[in-house]
């Protein structure tokens, strides 16, 4: 151990007396100890617990407190979920929602990033500040405001649709009076509004990251391509995109992870956990576990399925980050 310390020791260690040098070995571990304890107890242990709970039939809080038996049911919870046609609806909702939201967030975010890079200084600062506002707004209040904008009597969108010429509105949508129209009742429309809310919340991060990427690579290449007569589309795909490929990789993975487990926005927009046709995995798991009658085992099994899906995505992400740490 001592020789290892000497070989790889920090310069600070070299200057301290010999007796202290031996202590240096243990110090970093002592400093890490509280952090490791927190991670182990509050993140890793529960992760193991949720897997374990998914193998039991847990239907009451008294079982959780330890006052009652935990009947082992093996894979019965998984069998019940996977055999339920409703699970297929939930999985389809989750995947389609994630794919649509990642695509839209990436496209809008990238476009805004490119735009910010081309705008004059003052205009860029102004637009960036506004974009920051959307990013900074908490998921909860951001969603509440959108809900107000889509309110069925005094909401702005209802008013806008009422403003449409009656003839046009009737031909397009089959109605001219939109007062009292339940914007959140039709699942497809609900998902469209949820997508609007989630994209509004998440495109700023993409835009700012893309902008940071653009600022860090030399712009001469793009200018050269432009001088040579390449259109904006060509410049982006042949010059800009290849240079920023690592950034895009990480952004896509992060967005995928976030959009797979959207909860707060959906919970607020749907007004709780009653709107089953619009369920996605995270809210499905929560509703099964906590809506009376509670089914903690079943909810755990759904949570495990969600985690497994995200595990695959995470593996891709960690490999990307590590490769880049090596390169820099």
């Amino acid at each position, binding site marked *: 151990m001592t020789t290892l310390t000497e070989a790889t020791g920090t310069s600070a260690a070299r200057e301290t007396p010999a007796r202290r040098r031996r202590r240096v070995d243990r110090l970093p*571990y002592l*400093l890490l100890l509280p952090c490791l304890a927190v991670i182990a107890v509050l993140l890793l242990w529960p992760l193991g617990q949720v897997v374990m709970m998914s193998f039991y039939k847990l239907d009451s809080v008294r079982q959780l407190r330890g006052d009652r038996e935990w009947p082992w049911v093996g894979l019965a919870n998984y069998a019940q979920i996977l055999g339920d046609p409703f699970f297929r609806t939930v999985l389809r909702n989750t995947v389609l929602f994630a794919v649509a939201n990642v695509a839209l967030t990436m496209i809008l975010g990238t476009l805004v990033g490119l735009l910010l890079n081309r705008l004059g200084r003052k205009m860029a600062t102004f637009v960036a500040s506004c974009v920051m506002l959307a990013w900074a707004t908490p998921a909860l209040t951001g969603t509440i405001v959108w809900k107000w904008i889509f309110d069925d009597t005094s909401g*702005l969108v209802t008013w806008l649709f009422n403003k449409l010429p009656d003839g046009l509105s009737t031909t397009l949508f089959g109605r001219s009076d939109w007062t009292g129209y339940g914007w959140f009742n039709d699942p497809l429309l609900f998902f469209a509004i949820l997508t609007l809310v989630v994209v509004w919340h998440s495109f700023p991060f993409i835009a*700012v*990251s893309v902008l940071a990427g653009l600022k860090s690579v030399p712009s001469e290449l793009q200018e050269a391509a432009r001088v040579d007569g390449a259109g904006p589309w060509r410049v982006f795909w042949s010059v800009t995109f290849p240079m920023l490929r690592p*950034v895009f990789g990480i952004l896509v993975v992060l967005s995928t992870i976030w959009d797979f487990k959207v909860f707060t926005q959906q919970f607020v927009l749907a007004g709780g956990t009653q709107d089953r046709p619009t369920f996605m995995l995270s809210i499905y798991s929560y509703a099964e576990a906590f809506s009376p009658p509670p089914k903690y085992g079943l909810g755990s099994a759904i949570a495990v399925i969600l985690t497994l899906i995200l595990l695959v995505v995470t593996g891709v992400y960690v490999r990307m*980050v590590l490769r880049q740490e090596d390169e820099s």
Partner: protein
Amino acid sequence: MKKVALNGAGLLVALFAAFPVYWMIATSLKPNREIFSATPRPVPAEPTLEHYREILTGNLIPGVTFTDFFLNSALVAVATVLLSALVALLAATAVARFRFRLRTSFLILLLVVQMIPLEALVIPLFLMIQRLGLYNTLPSLILTYLGFSLPFAVWMLRGFVAAVPKELEEAAAIDGASRAQTFRRILFPLVAPGLVATSIFSFITAWNELIFALTFVNDQQKYTLPVAMTFFFGRDDTAWGSVMAASTLFTLPVIVFFLLVQRRMVSGLVSGAVKG
């Protein structure tokens, strides 16, 4: 011509991004007859603070005011921040100042645990909170948020610690300062700005959280602000003026804090992706 098109696009983006925030504040300042009129006004014609007065003086439930929920939230968030900052500073110092065998493994662990879907941990953490007898207490939330905010805090803070020149500490050591003195007199003051930035992120995490607060606390008097808002304002005949006033009061601290630190957010999440 091209310049005009670009600026026009810029204005559209700015409008889309900022409008909901503007609309929240504008609505909170309108009297009810303007809020519920058939023709919405873009700007409050007769601005009023009546909705703010309403939520700040009235009881949301008998004996409990908006301010009480605000204080519950603040207590939880501040406690989370203090604990998280202390633990993160120790760990970040270890990672940034020492080379030891498990250093890389620890960094990988930090990355991996940040990817754990927290939504999947509601049920097992509920079990833990029940077993510990912490159900229906604010410490149950402090503990939970500590776990959520710590990995990112360490990840971010290690950069700040690494940025402090080692030579300063070495010089102090040569002058006879003990390790503890070096830490307190040299490293800590220089890392303090980074510690503030990191703490703001922990604060926002704890302040905004809804699901766990909804699940672990049953007693209405102990609700945090997000829970109180979904619970009392989620009804059909919504009093939008009060809701928007409450939302504004909830959102403004977050926006102010966020704007102070957003630069770090990008570098923390995409660290290493872009050189320079």
